């Protein structure tokens, strides 16, 4: 009887122990991934001088690790035509981040698969000149305890603020230089946008490449903010076919006005095609030379 009980219980006991050990291993091997999302990631708002507006953003924890996060506000500007974002104040300019007040506590707890809504208000001083002003609201996780390198994750909502009033709106767009001939397997195609006005605009750009028969082989469309007194490069990479004659066309919307950019012709011949053509020419020349030589020998043979 005893033996029968042991026989029956042993496999069950083994199974339970295996599960416990396996679960321990799983827990031990499991890391603590931190997952933070912010929405919206950019907000465009217009406010009159002396007025105030209230907006909202949402921070989401779509992961399996709870954390505490802090909210803060910083200036926003860009550097260079590649629009490298910068979050430090620029001396001599208005710091719009000081106009933003957060209604939520600085520090917030976010459980597993939870969301937190953060209200904020933007109050523009009464004597502010009309135009564009920029800031970013950050949500940043508190680092977990640990050794060596600890990390914080920070996501931002960029505020594109227009202070209402008469303001100069001006800008331009032109297609970046396109070579007449290329043997490259990849070619950067882009549009350069400039804003010479006092407020940002959203540029919708479109670039495409067609064959001489009009068949589209590449297209790239996108939308980008262009800040005042800046130049922005918007580009994509086209993987070129082995050879062909193509036309690059494009258009851009600047301050609400659509600009059609002059098209450019492009001849593509990859180096392996060039090598193949050269070899073909050499072989052809060799054959012709051989035939001419034989013809000359035959003539000489007849004469003698």
């Amino acid at each position, binding site marked *: 009887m005893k033996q029968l009980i042991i026989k029956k219980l042993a496999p069950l006991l083994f199974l339970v122990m295996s599960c416990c050990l396996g679960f321990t291993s799983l827990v031990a091997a499991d*890391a*603590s*991934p*931190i*997952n*933070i*999302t*912010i*929405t*919206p*990631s*950019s907000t465009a708002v217009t406010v009159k001088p002396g007025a105030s507006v209230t907006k909202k953003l949402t921070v*989401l924890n*779509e*992961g399996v*690790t709870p954390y505490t996060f802090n909210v803060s506000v910083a200036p926003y500007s860009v550097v260079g035509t*590649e*629009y*490298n*974002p910068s*979050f*430090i104040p620029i001396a001599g300019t208005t710091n719009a981040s000081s106009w933003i007040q957060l209604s939520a506590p600085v520090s917030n707890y976010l459980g597993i698969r939870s969301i937190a809504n953060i209200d904020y208000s933007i109050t523009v001083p009464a004597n502010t000149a009309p135009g564009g002003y920029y800031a*970013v609201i*950050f949500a*940043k996780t508190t*680092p*977990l*305890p*640990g*050794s*060596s*390198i*600890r*990390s*914080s*994750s*920070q*996501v*931002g909502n*960029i505020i594109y603020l227009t202070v209402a009033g008469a303001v100069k709106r001006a800008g331009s767009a032109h297609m970046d230089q396109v070579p007449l001939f290329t043997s490259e397997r990849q070619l950067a195609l882009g549009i350069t946008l400039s804003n010479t006005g006092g407020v940002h605009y959203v540029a919708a750009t479109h670039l495409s490449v067609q064959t001489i028969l009009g068949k589209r082989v590449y297209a790239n*469309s*996108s*939308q*980008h*903010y262009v800040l005042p007194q800046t130049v922005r490069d*918007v*580009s*994509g990479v086209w993987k070129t076919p082995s050879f062909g004659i193509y036309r690059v066309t494009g258009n851009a919307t600047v301050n609400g006005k659509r600009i059609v950019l002059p098209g450019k012709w492009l001849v593509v011949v990859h180096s392996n095609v060039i090598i193949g053509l050269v070899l073909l020419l050499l072989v052809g020349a060799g054959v012709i030379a051989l035939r001419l030589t034989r013809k000359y020998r035959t003539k000489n043979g007849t004469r003698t």
Partner: protein
Amino acid sequence: MSNTKIKLYSVGLATFGILGLPCVAMAATTDTVVNANISSTVGLLTSNGTVDLSTDPAGSGSQTQASDTVTVSTNDTAGYTLKLASSTALNTMDSGTDTVAASTGTQASPTALIANQWGYRIDGLAGFGVGTTTAVHDAAPTGVTFAAVPVSSAPDTIQNTNTTATNAITTVWYGLSADTSLPTGNYTNTVTYTVVTN
């Protein structure tokens, strides 16, 4: 009422019903425009939250390398910019008053770690070269090049895209080299990954 009149009235009624039905049907329809404004989002996921570079020092420098995986998702068609910096104005690893200095290399010109230095690298980015960096622990100096983690006011851009992204991964390698002159202790630094849409 005569049969003829009844028949006439019936035909008339039926005709009215058939002709009138579309009018009734037309009068019952209206157009409604359905709008849906999809907000932009950007999300950041780090694999661990901490990276362990614990090292047993050796005379000529013992090197440990480990990685952190940073994953970004955004539906903004302009793409995103991902930056890395120390969370403070200091980019040393500290244990009380003892420190491990930051690498003298930069993203454009990274350098191999010498004893008692730490830094970061990303294969294929800027001056780091293609490389296939691997995790090592207490190894002889690997000669792999690293850059200093910049201070908080001047973060390095470690990824920049111009299109939407779904779980786009950037692997950040951290390395530390220690020799026996470094006092024992728990050396730490907190780095910040920042992502904004373009």
